[in-house]
């Protein structure tokens, strides 16, 4: 019953991380022309939500909406895949604190923002998108599982999808419990159709033999790659910006690797 395994094109790309806010800043680093240097991560202000809604959302949700908006094709209501390992640590901390003091006074807004699909819900409202949207996690393997879900949707449903992956660090006392020390987010539109703006096409498979995960070509990015599960996307982002064919192995479940064959 299997469908044909066609190449899937990555037609748009956005990124937000310290020192890599937007493609203009990121491309010189991702193509190896300059070294990566960390810098203070700016406060993002997603313009697509009205000001009263923007006040209700956290830095975590803003990060997701920012890259989603940059990667989205304006006017399109695409099915969307939201992938985040941890959800919103700020909200978890705030609600758990309230529970220890005065449980009846949990903020209703914080409670509905605590669901893992809060960024997806705000995105659908902001983009006026009635299309299907999912929100997944597989812990530190979340980037590869999200990419796999996005590609299966393109292959099975034969329509473009928007893939958004993001994680935002916790503050004390939750700051030492996950592998997120820096904010990192990326988003793409994936499609069966090549466009003038396509970065590359990819084919995915699961490898149970590959021992080592792929590292960045620009080795100044290695510390960033290890600072956030979503930053495991960096070797792929390099290949897309270099527009070179390559085969990468991204960390995946149960010590397997997601094999990504990149071609032009």
């Amino acid at each position: 019953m299997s469908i044909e395994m066609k190449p899937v094109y990555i037609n748009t790309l956005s990124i937000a991380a310290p020192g890599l806010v937007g493609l203009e800043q990121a491309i010189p680093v991702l193509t190896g022309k300059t070294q990566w240097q960390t810098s203070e991560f700016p406060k993002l202000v997603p313009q697509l939500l009205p000001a009263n809604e923007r006040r209700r959302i956290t830095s975590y949700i803003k990060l997701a909406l920012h890259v989603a908006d940059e990667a989205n094709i304006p006017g399109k209501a695409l099915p969307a895949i939201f992938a985040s390992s941890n959800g919103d640590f700020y909200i978890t901390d705030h609600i758990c604190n309230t529970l220890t003091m005065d449980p009846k006074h949990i903020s209703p807004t914080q409670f509905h923002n605590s669901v893992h699909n809060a960024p997806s819900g705000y995105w659908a409202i902001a983009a006026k998108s009635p299309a299907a949207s999912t929100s997944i996690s597989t812990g530190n393997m979340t980037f590869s599982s999200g990419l796999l879900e996005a590609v299966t949707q393109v292959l099975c449903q034969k329509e473009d999808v928007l893939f958004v992956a993001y994680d935002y660090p916790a503050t004390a006392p939750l700051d030492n419990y996950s592998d997120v020390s820096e904010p990192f987010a990326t988003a793409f539109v994936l499609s069966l159709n090549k466009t003038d703006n396509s970065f590359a096409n990819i084919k995915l498979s699961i490898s149970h033999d590959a021992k080592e995960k792929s590292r960045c070509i620009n080795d100044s990015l290695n510390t960033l790659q290890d600072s956030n599960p979503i930053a495991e996307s960096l070797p792929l982002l390099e290949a897309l910006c270099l527009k070179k064919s390559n085969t990468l192995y991204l960390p995946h479940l149960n010590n397997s690797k997601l094999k990504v064959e990149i071609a032009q």
Partner: protein
Amino acid sequence: MSISPLSISASSMVNALGRGKEATLTALQQKRSGLQPSQGLDFSTWLGRVHDVDDYALEASLIRFRCRNNQLAKLALDTDNFRDAINKAKDKYGAHRIGVFLGSSTSGSEETEKAYQNRNAKGELPTDYDYMHTHNFTSLLDYTQQSLGLTGVGQVISTACSSSAKVFAAAHRHIDAGFCDAAIVGGVDTLTQISLYGFNSLQLTSANPCRPCDENRDGISIGEAAGFALLEATTGTTSNVVLKGYGESSDAYHMSTPHPEGRGAASAMQKALDSASIKADEIDYVNLHGTATPSNDAAEGKAILSVFGTHTPCSSTKGWTGHTLGAAGITEALICMLILENQFLPTNLNLQKADPSLSIQVLSENTKPEKMIKHVISNSFGFGGSNCSLILGLQ
């Protein structure tokens, strides 16, 4: 776009009605609710609690995953001969070719709640608190894969109350695209302070057992549950119940209130019909999302009216199990399977006076249908406007 059906060839369930499919079926047939008055909360409500979870031991080698959510998962994995079925599937497909797609809204977040209650004077969390193996969503996936000895693809979907309905769609796609040959779908959600006080903060909990579709409905009863099912190609399986279609949509309206006309809900049901290649009048029963909040049931009623008209029998089973949130999709899909296997339609428990403004046929008694039940649809709608409808049928 039509899809090929997949066989539901094994399954297990645990909820407030008891352990196993037989316990759920018997409670449905005897009209015996699992809801009980809450204890120890700062407000009054009724809950669908599963008993005997806290002492249920995980495997010694997997003890770091210990939390109520994973204990409930193990209770379900150890029920209805589910492990035997998975062992046979492993022999048939290989452990690396069976995917695992699970839904949860809570995961083991109760461990973080407890850790905050037990912070030391410096505000630090207890040394034995293990976030990644309990609270992080991957805890449920990692525990389930390791408990069953599976090494294939998988994911946890967390889209609030549609989570464990959407796993059927993700599993179907991964099988179709060739990333696995068979898949376990499921959902596990446990009662947590976050969800209890959170729904209370939104004034969505009832002080009484929930009354879906009733004129005087006034909110939800929260429950907990676990359920799993094995999906595989229909050839060579003995089960005659299949996943026939799925539909997913977004409301794009509000974070915690459904679109008042049920726009997203109607779209999910229509997409499910299209994917099953059947017409609305071929659906013999609708298992409602039916949470018993005034706005949810009104929106769903309008959506059903627009897709099915006034005659299709409908009921919500949340009066039995409570609203099991991230486990509602799998729990109600498996109730639909019991309906197909046993050819009866469950009443909408706790209904005193059906809301006349709903204009849909809400069942007020357990019913033995006159014609064979061939196709049923199960609705799951969640916060963030996340909608999923599943169609199950007889092969």
